[in-house]
């Protein structure tokens, strides 16, 4: 298992580099443009449903991407539990965020397609219900990541949910086979030949490829955001050189110094009285998306530089 992780880490590093990100962005734009032409102009309308069936070329790829995103969450979470390396946790967090977007998109597009074909926007059909449950599981996962906990503990809890939550993915996929469903069964991934016209299949496969490249681009971009925000947090913990060992209140502040776009970060919790320890900035003291990181103190309550560095090292260890 651990032998598999190294090559995966190398591939991940290459894909999420700045150059990789740029190429993925260009590739996604081109592939989506071609997909638009294929699905709206070249593919014929469906014999029964007419043109509204063209929604399939966005609905099915969005659903596929939701599966892929949550599979990546599972891989990232399992790898984090095995290795305790921060970049796996970042990968899982990034993929979960994108997966939630694609799941919501799948449900909305399915609803828009469902109304003219089924006559209803929503029904408690097994496929629809299990997909809604999947959305709730991963929305919960994102909420868990906002808990004001230590980065290490939060990463562990999230990884456990990332592994356990994955159980729902095969249930969503197989729901149309296991239970009586209004939703149509699989047309491409099924035993025997795909039950779809070849030109429609080409348009569908191309759209899926284009969405996958877009997913890779969004993932690379989201991981860069994660890296930068971690850097900001780590930098916020280190004392400023001129303030260390002389002026009280080093690296703390006690005001509302803003870091990572979040007011109050890295400062927070300033004690009004000298000599009274400041509280951690758990409320309003969120730095770059990581809630509850320790802020500094007011006058006379500066943490020891070694203490700050140890905490920063802890953040670095978890977030890579």
């Amino acid at each position, binding site marked *: 298992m651990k032998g598999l992780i190294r090559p995966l880490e190398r591939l991940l590093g290459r894909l999420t580099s700045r150059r990789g990100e740029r190429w993925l962005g260009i590739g996604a734009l081109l592939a989506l443009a071609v997909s*638009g032409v294929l699905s*709206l102009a070249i593919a014929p309308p469906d014999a029964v449903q*007419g*043109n*509204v069936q*063209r*929604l399939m070329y*966005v*609905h099915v790829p*969005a659903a596929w991407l939701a599966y892929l995103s949550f599979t990546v969450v599972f891989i990232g979470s399992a790898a984090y539990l095995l290795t305790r390396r921060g970049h796996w946790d970042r990968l899982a967090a990034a993929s979960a965020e*994108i997966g939630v*977007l694609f799941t*919501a*998109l799948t449900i*909305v*597009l399915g609803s*828009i*397609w469902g*109304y*003219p074909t089924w006559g209803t926007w929503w029904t408690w059909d097994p496929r629809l219900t299990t997909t809604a449950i999947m959305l709730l599981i991963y929305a919960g996962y994102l909420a868990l990541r906002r808990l004001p906990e230590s980065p290490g503990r939060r990463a562990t809890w999230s990884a456990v949910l990332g592994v356990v939550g994955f159980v729902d993915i095969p249930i969503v996929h197989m729901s149309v086979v296991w239970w009586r469903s209004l939703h149509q069964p699989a047309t491409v991934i099924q035993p025997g030949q795909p039950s779809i016209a070849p030109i429609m299949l080409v348009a569908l496969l191309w759209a899926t490829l284009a969405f996958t490249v*877009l997913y890779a*681009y*969004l993932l690379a*971009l*989201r991981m*860069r*955001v994660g890296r*930068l*925000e971690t*850097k*900001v947090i780590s*930098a*916020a913990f*280190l004392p*400023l*050189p001129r303030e260390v060992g002389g002026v009280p209140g080093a690296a703390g502040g006690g005001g509302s110094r803003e*870091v*990572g*776009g979040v007011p109050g970060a890295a400062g927070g919790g300033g004690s009004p009285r000298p000599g009274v320890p400041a509280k951690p900035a758990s409320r309003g003291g969120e730095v*770059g998306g990581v809630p509850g990181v320790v802020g500094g103190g007011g006058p006379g309550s500066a943490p020891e530089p070694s203490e700050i560095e140890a905490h920063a090292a802890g953040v670095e260890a978890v977030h890579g």
Partner: protein
Amino acid sequence: MDNLAFIVAGYLITFISLAGYAFHLRGRARRASRRAADLSAKR
């Protein structure tokens, strides 16, 4: 074209949500990058 409104709505929602998310991430990356540069300049 039958049910044109549904098709337009579906494609527009897809485009706006994905492009919007990509721009949101780019903005977040830019802000975080600026903050990181500011902090390292102070050191």
